[in-house]
């Protein structure tokens, strides 16, 4: 039963993206189309599950003082694997994601889960945690992507939805539309779950030990 909880908490209650506000850069950058959001989400999920698996296996081996560089190298290794795979099998998607494919390495969700969860828990819960968090991230990317694609081009996943006479609002696929849509989605989720989104969470910030502002719950 508790295994189930590790999996489901990432989907909505502790959604890494919309509730914990981690990994905002890819959320804004790749969501001009729902399809790209899906691709990015699944690539991140894969890296997250693998890195959680390896880190929870190695947690006794990795010395505490150099754990962050170790985690980053493990994560970067899986990111390299994913980007080579996508380059050869899904070149269009790799092209669309561009630099952000390599930037999965510095996605704070992955490092955050490694530090918060995988380094303290057993293998199976860590994998489930990674899977749940990854799918939660994927869901939020698809939601934001679908809204922007529908309003910006009149399509969802490439299929025409809006009737022809409706002029698409191009602003939504511009960067400005990304900020706006994400802001609205977070607000709506806050209203639905009756919980104000936390400001900026320090719990999973890799720098929280050196940072002196953790008690104030804000950065710098």
């Amino acid at each position, binding site marked *: 039963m508790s295994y189930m909880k590790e999996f489901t908490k990432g989907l909505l209650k502790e959604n890494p993206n919309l509730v914990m506000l981690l990994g905002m850069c890819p959320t804004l950058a790749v969501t001009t189309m729902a399809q790209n959001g899906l691709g990015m989400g699944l690539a991140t999920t894969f890296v997250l599950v693998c890195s959680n698996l390896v880190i929870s296996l190695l947690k006794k081996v990795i010395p505490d003082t150099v754990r962050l560089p170790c985690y980053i190298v493990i994560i970067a290794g899986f990111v390299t694997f994913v980007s080579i795979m996508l380059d050869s099998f899904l070149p269009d998607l790799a092209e669309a994601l561009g630099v952000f494919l390599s930037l999965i390495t*510095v996605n704070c969700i992955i490092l955050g889960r490694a530090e918060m969860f995988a380094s303290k828990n057993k293998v199976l819960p860590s994998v489930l945690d990674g899977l749940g968090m990854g799918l939660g991230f994927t869901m939020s990317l698809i939601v934001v992507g679908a809204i922007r694609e529908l309003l910006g081009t009149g399509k969802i996943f490439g299929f025409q939805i809006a009737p022809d006479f409706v002029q698409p609002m191009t602003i939504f696929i511009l960067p400005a539309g990304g900020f706006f849509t994400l802001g609205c989605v977070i607000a709506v989720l806050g209203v639905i779950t009756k919980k104000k989104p936390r400001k900026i969470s320090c719990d999973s910030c890799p720098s929280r030990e050196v940072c002196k502002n953790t008690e104030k719950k804000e950065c710098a």
Partner: protein
Amino acid sequence: MELARNLMVILFTGILTENFILNKFYGICPFLGVSKTTDGAVGMGIAVTLVMTGSSAVTYPIYHYVLEPLGIEYLKTVCFILIIAAFVQTVEMILKKYVPSLYKSLGVYLPLITTNCAVLGVTILNIDNEFGFVESIVNALAGGIGFLLVMVIFSGVRERISRCNVPKALEGTPITLIAASVTSLSFVGFSGIVDGIFGG
């Protein structure tokens, strides 16, 4: 002359039309986290500019003289992130030892920068765009200045927001993101300006 023009185009494109934060979405976390006060925004902006320029200067020779001859370009992500982490650590130690006053004001921001996607992003972009050494450094500098500019502008916007009456549902992050959207929209006004000046 050609090179100078080219560098000016990279510089102005990086600062205005393809701003790192508002257009390319690099470094959104510090943008949302540290932009509450102007002091914090300036400190973070300067630290990011320094680290970005420095790590571009370091990663360029490593990529072109080590990874490329060995045919292991695919290791660039792993390699660059380690270089950046080491670079940040070194800068921190040097500042602590020799310029303690600067360390006091910038030191807090330095560890946060290792996982800032702007830094890894700019080093990878330099490689992807096949920039030369000088171009890479100018590109990183432009990105950094653009970052600093937007951080400072946005810290002003946030100070205004904090004194406004915001609808309850939008309090906190949502209103910040919507304000960022308007700021981003205002930068759309710069589109075409670089071609206009330098006859692209």
